[in-house]
């Protein structure tokens, strides 16, 4: 998996609400209304979480007549939970930030 996609996946997984939504989707596809039910959160708020999950490739959405269903996509999730992924993500992100910092540092006198 490309490094920025993995970052998007970890970013999406870092939020507890989004992890709960994924947990729910392991039991089968669901509408926004159904996903809303366990949370004290508005439908637009849940929709924003679904958008993040969709952009990370963790869910796909389809429309059956008026019902818009969210579906869990397992492959990116498996890639993110493979044993080196978190370690790689940690150092990749850190070193990208270090690149940015080095570019701003003054040369030593």
């Amino acid at each position, binding site marked *: 998996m490309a490094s920025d996609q993995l970052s998007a996946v*970890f*970013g999406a*997984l*870092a*939020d*507890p609400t989004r*992890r709960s939504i*994924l*947990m729910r989707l*392991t039991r089968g596809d669901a509408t926004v209304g159904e996903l809303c039910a366990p949370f004290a959160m508005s439908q637009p708020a849940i929709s924003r979480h679904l958008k993040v999950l969709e952009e990370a490739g963790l869910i796909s959405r389809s429309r059956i007549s008026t019902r818009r269903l969210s579906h*869990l996509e*397992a492959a990116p*999730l*498996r890639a*993110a*939970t493979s*044993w*080196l992924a*978190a*370690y*790689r*993500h*940690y*150092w*990749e*992100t*850190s*070193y*990208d*930030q*270090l*690149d*940015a*910092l*080095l*570019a701003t*540092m003054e*040369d*030593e006198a």
Partner: protein
Amino acid sequence: MTAIEIVAEPGVPQVLVTREFAAPASKLLRAHTDPDLLARWLGPEGLQLTVDVLEPRDGGRWRYTQTDAKGERFSFFGLYHGTPSTQGIVQTYEFDRQPGRVYLNAISFEERGERTVLRQNTVFQSVEDRDYYVRGGMEVGLRASLDRLDALVTGRQ
């Protein structure tokens, strides 16, 4: 952006990380040994790094704490062996949730013209210690729920 290379051989309690930077070794050394600079790059988004102690000299101590979004804190600490220099940094590491599982981290800097190759050689007491660390001792809470999700997803298909 340069690609990171990570080698973790099965059955060997060691991890090798290699990464090239467009900067001299002296800047890399400062970024690793100045507390304000270190806090600006180490660790992914979502983890706030606080440098508690940093004494970059032979026998000096270091300690930093990472705080996640839920306020959970993870501390790492150890000693410097030899004074950190533009050749590299040798330090021991211990994670506060795994007392006694000390490991050794040697960072080397090799200048190549305008660029510097950084290598991290991390050696653990056992393969179990390495695997715990690699699987994300730094993101314990997140790992636990990811593992549950992974099991659910795998069980489903």
